[in-house]
């Protein structure tokens, strides 16, 4: 394998030989490589956030017919650096009565839980952190650590609004994790492995063609997991005073947002790995490094859809959100799993040209059936009238009564 076909593998090999040439043992050389690779990957993910924040502000600005950031540097590209400079010099305000360890640990966990996902994502055949044999469950488990970070933020802050916000956020996250895991069982079934590398390698036909409904469910639930619009009711920053992060300031507050932006990009990466064939594309067998290009093109497209969704859709109410998850997504994901498992076993051995239309047709039928059922329920259900309640008046005797006598006393 020459340098130009796979610069990453060649560079690692060169570095390993160099270290061993310096008289290190093979294990020590491996450890140093791990350390270097980890620092590059984790640092790279954090550096990416700087660009993501700028891109998102610019795109949302254009959607809303604004220019977006345009002062610092060409197209405002250095705007985020100015923001970083500012947030680094802000004061930390630590409210009285906080539980210091959970309070200070929470923002660190919120970011670390997202970065840790990057350890198992395969960018090309050779470029990945670790090809963990249980990578998919690892990704889910790391999400649980992020949840704990939110609980710690809510409880450590010693503020009832932070606590309520944290519990709403956690309830939302755990609810949407169910259809997500069930939808992800379909790529696992197709690959026969939980490793993200094997799942990518198995997709000669992209999984989105075999299970489009599962892909849709994963996309929706992953957006809800991050808590972005239209699922951002917990921390609707334009309407409420934040959620669980209300008592944070300076960079501690900023890191919750860094975690959010990075998580939004990370779920786009996961969508690419699970349903869009990851690094797969033409000529990847000859030139593996092309895989990284395909990977980032696909991821950016998914991320763009994500941003446009954020710009376009209105926010859910909490009861709508819970209903949508438990009464629509969960039964739907279970039935998709059952139907796909049966259909795949029964059409085994047929050519892909027969199988894919069968899968697409079955998914379409399921979606149609689910829509009909939802619509029938929605039509038959008595609707609550949306009116504001009469409010008590401070001094009823001086209130102006519009009906009586035209307001003249």
């Amino acid at each position, binding site marked *: 394998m020459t340098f130009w076909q796979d610069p990453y593998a060649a560079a690692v090999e060169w570095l390993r030989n160099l270290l061993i040439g310096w008289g290190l043992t093979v294990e020590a050389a491996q450890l140093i490589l791990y350390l270097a690779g980890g620092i590059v990957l984790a640092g790279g993910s954090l550096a990416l956030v700087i660009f993501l924040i700028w891109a998102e502000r610019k795109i949302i600005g254009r959607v809303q017919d604004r220019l977006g950031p345009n002062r610092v540097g060409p197209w405002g590209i250095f705007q985020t650096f100015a923001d970083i400079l500012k947030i680094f010099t802000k004061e930390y305000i630590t409210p009285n009565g906080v539980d210091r360890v959970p309070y200070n640990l929470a923002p660190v966990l919120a970011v670390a839980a997202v970065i840790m996902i990057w350890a198992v994502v395969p960018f090309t055949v050779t470029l990945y952190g670790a090809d963990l*044999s249980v990578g998919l469950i690892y990704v*889910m*488990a790391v999400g*649980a*650590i992020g*949840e704990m970070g939110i*609980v710690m933020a809510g*409880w450590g802050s010693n503020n009832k609004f932070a606590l309520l916000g944290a519990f709403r956020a956690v309830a939302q996250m*755990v609810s949407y994790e169910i259809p997500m895991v069930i939808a992800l069982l379909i790529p696992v079934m197709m690959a026969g*492995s939980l490793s993200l590398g094997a799942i990518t390698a198995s997709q000669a036909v992209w999984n989105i063609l075999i299970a489009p409904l599962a892909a849709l469910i994963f996309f929706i639930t992953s957006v809800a997991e991050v808590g972005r619009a239209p699922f951002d009711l917990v921390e609707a920053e334009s309407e409420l005073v934040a959620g669980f992060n209300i008592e944070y300031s300076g960079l501690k507050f900023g890191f919750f947002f860094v975690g959010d932006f990075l998580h939004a990009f990370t779920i786009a990466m996961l969508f690419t790995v699970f349903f869009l064939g990851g690094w797969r594309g033409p000529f990847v067998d000859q030139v593996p490094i092309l895989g990284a290009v395909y990977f980032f093109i696909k991821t950016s497209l998914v991320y763009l859809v994500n941003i446009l969704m954020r710009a376009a859709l209105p926010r859910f109410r909490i009861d709508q959100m819970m209903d949508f998850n438990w009464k629509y997504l969960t039964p739907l994901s279970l039935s998709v799993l059952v139907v796909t498992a049966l259909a795949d076993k029964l059409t085994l051995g047929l050519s892909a040209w027969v199988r894919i239309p069968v899968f697409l047709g079955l998914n379409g039928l399921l979606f149609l059936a689910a829509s009909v059922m939802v619509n029938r329920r929605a039509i038959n259900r008595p609707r609550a009238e949306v009116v504001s309640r009469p409010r008590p008046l401070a001094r009823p005797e001086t209130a102006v009564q519009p009906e009586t006598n035209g307001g003249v006393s």
Partner: protein
Amino acid sequence: MSTAQILFLIFSAVVVAAAVMVVLSRRIMRAALWLVLALFGVALIFALLDASFFAVVQVLVYVGAIATLLIFAIMLTRGVMDDSKAQLNRGWPFALLVCLGLFGGLVYILSQWNRFNSAAPALPQDAYDLTLFGLALTSPDGYLVAFEAASVLLLAAMVGAIYLALEKRGN
């Protein structure tokens, strides 16, 4: 001492210290956070035992779900236990005696066993194959009954817990 031994000692120190704090913490919410740390430490021990699947499942189920559920329950029942008073029964020295006796007895009995200090065999290539585990779990010669019984157990737990926890309409 090998690296694995040092790692084991660190992880088990974390587990034991966190477990002691779970039992002794006055504030119940702190105890829950210590419990999360203890469960996480147990996941690390599982990873040390080459059981990667159970290491991640431990975090997924215990930290992600059971600890979350415990914290929800603590929030629902908060405010009725006075945190400032002692959280242990009056008979706690007796309980301590029982536990120390049990621990001593267990260690004594185990140390009589001739395989107590056996070393781990090398891991064969296919020893850890989830495909075969899935096959064994669903084959009638394997553990099919356990598999389906677990599903019924979960169903019963779900129905029972919802019945108990749901506020009855009308009162």
